[in-house]
């Protein structure tokens, strides 16, 4: 029983990280119908921004509240800027081209970031994994028996941040002018432009928002698993993408539910069966969902008019 409870906690902790990354995929897809395969790598770059900031702060400042806030802020602002640059120089020139072109470019950006960061030159980090400094003082909050079930302050924090950001996004998309503009652009960006909506600016803002979100998610991931490496984005990005598709890509609550489900499924597979099956079951789950409900759990299948 205690083992089951511990697996449940571990799975939720993994799922919340996937959820935050999946939100970025879902937002960009919602607006542009573009699967931004570089999203996971933007997350990785964000983690390195946070890593450098944490080291510049020094050991004493790291576990203070403002220190943590500064680390998150630096990573999120840095990534927002990176997201802006990627959109401006990689995707915008291709916006009127077939959608496949942008998809290939996204994969190109992804590889440029993940392999570029393996170079060992000056500011670039090199290929080997690093330990992420402890920026949040670990604290056990909830223990059953003699440490039979352990829950940590940062696990609760991640879940709270993920749910908070989800609600905030939902509010942003459905209750604000910016959200309405986003939805209009998503519906038809040429017509939206004719109606006086600054499409380029809306799209750039969407990218910046999703990249900042990725940076936040990346930091929570680094705090959870204590390790940073240039290839982490490929792996987490792929899993989060699967989560977004399971939930119904383009759907904000769907991304969160899909990610939590995926986190739990993986945890239980590894805990009760074998780690070899982790990816097979994750992708099997994806195929099953797509077979039974092609739009994802929360998605609608839009009838394409021919």
């Amino acid at each position, binding site marked *: 029983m205690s083992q089951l409870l511990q697996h449940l906690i571990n799975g939720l902790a993994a799922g919340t990280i996937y959820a935050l990354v999946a939100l970025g995929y879902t937002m960009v897809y919602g607006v542009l119908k573009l699967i931004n395969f570089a999203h996971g790598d933007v997350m990785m770059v964000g983690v390195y921004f946070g890593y450098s900031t944490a080291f510049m702060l020094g050991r004493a400042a790291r576990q203070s509240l403002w220190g943590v806030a500064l680390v998150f802020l630096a990573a999120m602002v840095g990534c927002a800027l990176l997201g802006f640059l990627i959109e401006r120089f990689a995707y915008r020139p291709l916006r009127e081209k077939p959608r496949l072109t942008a998809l290939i470019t996204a994969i190109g950006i992804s590889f440029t970031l993940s392999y570029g960061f393996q170079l060992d030159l000056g500011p670039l980090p090199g290929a080997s994994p*690093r330990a992420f400094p402890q920026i949040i003082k670990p604290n056990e909050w909830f223990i059953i028996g003699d440490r039979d079930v352990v829950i940590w302050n940062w696990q609760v924090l991640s879940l709270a941040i993920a749910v908070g950001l989800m609600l905030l996004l939902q509010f942003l998309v459905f209750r604000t002018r910016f959200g309405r503009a986003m939805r209009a652009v998503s519906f038809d960006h040429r017509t939206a432009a004719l109606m006086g909506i600054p499409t380029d600016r809306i799209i750039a803002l969407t990218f910046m928002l999703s990249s900042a979100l990725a940076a936040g998610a990346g930091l929570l991931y680094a705090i959870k698993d204590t390790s940073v490496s240039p290839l982490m984005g490929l792996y987490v990005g792929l899993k989060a993408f699967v989560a977004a598709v399971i939930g119904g890509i383009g759907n904000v609550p769907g991304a969160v539910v899909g990610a939590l489900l995926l986190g739990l499924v993986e945890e239980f597979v590894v805990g009760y069966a*074998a*780690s070899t099956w982790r990816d097979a079951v994750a992708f099997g789950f994806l195929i099953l969902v797509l077979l039974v409900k092609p739009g994802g759990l929360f998605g609608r299948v839009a009838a394409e008019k021919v």
Partner: protein
Amino acid sequence: MRRPVPLVLAALLLGALACEKKAQAPSAPNPGASGAPSAAGGAPAPAGTLLLGVATALTGGQATFGISTRNGIELAIAEANEAGGVKGQKLATRVYDTQGKPEEAASAVTRLINQDHVALILGDVASSNSLAMAEKAQAAKVPMITPSSTNPDVTKKGDYIFRVCFIDPFQGFVMAKFARENLKLSKVAVLKDNRSAYSEGLADVFVRKFTEMGGKVVATESYSQGDTDYRAQLTAIKKQKPDAIYVPGYYSEVGIIARQARELGLNVPLMGGDGWDSEKLFELGGSAVEGSYFSNHYSSQDPNERVQKFVQAYKAKYGGVPDALAALAYDAARVAVDAIKRAPDTKPASLRDAIGQTKDFAGVAGTITLDENRNPVKSAAVLKVGDGTYEFVTTVAP
């Protein structure tokens, strides 16, 4: 819309240039870049010297291992030259970079054999590179000694291929014996990397030996190289309440595993193999790895006089404590020099026979006697992880 194009092009060009430079470095006629003390790439060796080929990773992910290897070999060669050389000749090395890639390793060996006509070849660290090299060396019938490739298949490539390190399964045996006899443990869990033949090999032998010696393996869990979340496996292991966990993986994963084990309240020692031997283990594992044990080829703290003499000489020349790879490379080069001395001439077949007859050779990382499979029979060191250092615990004989 046009502006980004030159930008992207420039970035691509830069990347391509960086790759070019790397690829050319070893073959460029520049002794400084290749690290060869005397001979320049491609040029014939100076008259009166005997050329030894070295192929190891000087760049890429295994670069720290490869550089230690090169240093160890050059220290041994310098000492041999100071002592008067062999057969009235001085020794020289020609060093090529394998970049840690099997295809580069194979081409480096081809160059060493066809262009440089070396007498024998030393290298590489990673078994996959040595396997590619052994293929070429065996086909050309040039003797090759790998200092530190532990995969059993390397020397199976043929009768010209030797090694001076013990093979993978032996480490599983050592830790099983150590756990039973020295630590007196009875319940151990195993957490192995199911994407690595190295890890599987060590784990299999460990389980067999530990059970034979009356111990009980209470859980066997696995992970995949590159994972960063091991909580599911550790939670399952914790339920079995083991006395220790055998994790025969690499430092990059072990450090994180240790942290997550402590976090889940699993406060038992971890045990492992030579894949743990890296400064990075402390960075990744922090205080969580303290008190764990692993088997290794040697310890720089081994009070043995031979070891201490080597450590001093290495420190004087390179200014750092030699790791196991440097020690094994030093041994490999000395075994080669010893064989050249004993051989009637420097023909490949004579050298092969002389290397094969190596017996009771006093190496830094143990006494080397090569068996009929060209693998050494030697003991291993067990180290305990302390606060930023390894403490020498004991040696375990086969």
